[in-house]
């Protein structure tokens, strides 16, 4: 009985857990609940992915109202993969959060932290699994609103400003998305993605559709921090509590990227987006600009978390570059980078949080001599940095390789060249950390050896190990991404 309800339970379990945590009013109970929920959603997402891979699309009718009239949850190899990424990252972040949150969030607010984390998880999973354009908007708002508050819980007053900035831009993005959906609804008379894909073929007047596509691209572009719509991201990631930075950096932009893929490849189709409109060219130019400008900005950041945040904007550029190719291999490479960059950036932010706990911050001057005081953390951070560069043997290499091959296959050599050149900038910003941590003396009075406690280092190292594993054994992720790309492109009923 349970198995058939999995598509909706993945989102409902964290959604129910959040108010339960509020009623219990206990930080510890909240943490235990969050841990159980993260484990449950991970297991359920994995089961869904296995089921979708084995037997194709799973459709679930909320309230037993058949689609396209009711809200449909539609799980295939693409969104089950995204759901698994989101819940697996949550499963790593929640054990880590216990100590990190105790250090950074006031005692009386910790239960609210876990309730908000569960709401955010529910929102992201709902966005991934729903097959309904408006339901997606609702979950987008659930995840966004909870993220704003989570960021505002950061230690410094600056966090409030960062959260407010993100609130203004994020709300603008969500509004643009819903305007775009409104235009599509006017043209097709349906909100169900699969039904919309079929009916779009009969729409004669292409102008509202192009406007709708433009609105959705701009709106979701804001949420996924597409250059130059990324202004909210560096402050938000840098000021949020460590556990939030890790969770949001690894999942939130990734789910938005999935939404863009769904709209482009499943609803509109490759021809409408990339042949009839210049979307591909625009996206490619913005992506390359992100790869260079954001990576260059990362080099000069005075704070490690801000450096990682700018690096995220650059890495999102690689993903949107894969989308801009408008081909199945390009889409598969983008999906692979969603997963690989998600775990890489998650691991790096967790490690940065461990440093923040011991050093009181992540400014570049504070991490000086880190290799002596926190050797394990410093080494793991370098491994994560190598994955950002795309060194063979790390996750980043596998997906960048797939991206370069897809670009060459599409005959766009300049894109392949841009990927390689921009990786040099990643070398530069990772080197800044290496230089500070390995070639500078620790500040006077620093303790000899002072790693963060095991319940923080453990999850961070586990995720770093996953980065290496995904680099050495790249085929599971690449195959899952190829299947995801096929599912995204062959969507209509």
């Amino acid at each position, binding site marked *: *009985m349970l198995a058939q309800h999995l598509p909706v*339970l993945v989102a409902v379990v964290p959604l129910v857990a959040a*108010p*339960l945590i509020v009623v219990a009013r206990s930080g510890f109970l909240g943490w235990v609940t969050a841990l159980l929920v993260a484990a449950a959603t991970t297991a359920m997402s994995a089961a869904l992915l296995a089921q979708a891979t084995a037997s194709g699309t799973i459709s*679930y009718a909320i*309230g037993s109202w058949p689609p396209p009239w009711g809200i449909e949850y539609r799980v295939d190899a693409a969104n089950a993969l995204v759901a698994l990424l989101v819940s697996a990252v949550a499963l790593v972040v929640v054990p880590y959060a216990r100590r990190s949150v105790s250090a950074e969030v006031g005692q*009386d607010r910790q239960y609210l932290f876990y*309730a908000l984390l569960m709401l955010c998880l529910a929102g992201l999973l709902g966005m991934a699994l729903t097959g309904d354009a408006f339901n997606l908007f609702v979950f987008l708002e659930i995840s966004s609103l909870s993220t704003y508050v989570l960021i505002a819980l950061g230690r410094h007053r600056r966090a409030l400003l960062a959260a407010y900035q993100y609130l203004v831009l994020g709300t603008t993005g969500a509004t643009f998305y819903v305007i775009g959906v409104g235009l599509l609804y006017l043209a097709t008379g349906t909100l169900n993605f699969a039904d919309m894909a079929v009916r779009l073929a009969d729409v004669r007047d292409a102008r509202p559709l192009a406007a709708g596509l433009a609105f959705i691209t701009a709106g979701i572009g804001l949420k996924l921090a597409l250059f130059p719509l990324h202004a909210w991201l560096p402050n938000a990631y840098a000021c949020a509590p460590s556990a939030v930075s890790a969770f949001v950096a690894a999942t939130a932009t990734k789910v938005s990227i999935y939404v863009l893929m769904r709209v482009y490849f499943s609803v509109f189709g490759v021809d409408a987006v990339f042949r009839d409109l210049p979307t591909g060219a625009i996206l490619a130019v913005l992506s390359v600009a992100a790869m260079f400008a954001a990576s260059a900005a990362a080099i000069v950041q005075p704070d490690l978390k801000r450096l990682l945040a700018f690096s995220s904007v650059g890495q999102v550029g690689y993903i949107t570059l894969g989308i801009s190719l408008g081909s199945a291999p390009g889409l598969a490479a983008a999906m692979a980078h969603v997963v690989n960059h998600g775990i890489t950036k998650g691991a790096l932010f967790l490690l940065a949080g461990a440093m923040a706990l011991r050093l009181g911050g992540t400014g570049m001057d504070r991490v000086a001599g880190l290799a002596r005081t926190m050797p394990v953390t410093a080494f793991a951070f370098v491994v994560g940095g190598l994955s950002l560069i795309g060194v063979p043997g790390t996750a980043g290499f596998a997906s960048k390789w797939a991206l370069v091959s897809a670009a060459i296959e599409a005959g766009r050599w300049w894109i392949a060249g841009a990927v390689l050149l921009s990786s040099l900038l990643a070398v530069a910003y990772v080197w800044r950390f290496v230089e500070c941590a390995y070639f500078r003396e620790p500040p006077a009075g620093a303790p000899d050896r002072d790693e963060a406690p095991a319940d923080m280092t453990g999850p961070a190292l586990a995720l770093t190990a996953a980065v290496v594993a995904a680099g050495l054994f790249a085929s599971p992720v690449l195959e899952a991404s190829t299947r995801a790309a096929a599912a995204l492109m062959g969507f209509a009923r």
Partner: protein
Amino acid sequence: MKSDIILRVVAKILIPFALMFALYVQFHGDFGPGGGFQAGVIVAAAVVFYGVIFGLAAARRAVPEPLVESMVAAGVLVYAGVGVAGLLLGGNYLDYFVLDHDPVHGQHRGIFWVEVGVAITVSGVMLKIFYLFAGRGRGFEEDDGP
């Protein structure tokens, strides 16, 4: 405004009627304009009115802060609980058809409880916002942290 006898008497007369009107809006929402959101706002407005006339402390005594916070969560639980009830009775999530032997009654029962949940959460959120704004600068405000 505690000392103004006219305001106090009028408030004491009006507040029960406001609450009664909220119940009417809640239960008549199935047939006419109204529903959980509007009813929740009216309930909250009655408490806000009480707070304006008799003071914030009196309002907090009548409707304590922990209760308000629990209401915010409880309404969501009622709503989600209707969905889970559908699951347990053998339907899909939020399936109202299975909530009664007669599917039409089932739909009625489902939306009734959903609206109850909405009313509880909306009045809770309204009051929480009121308490937060009204309490600013009076020592009621929560610690903002370092």
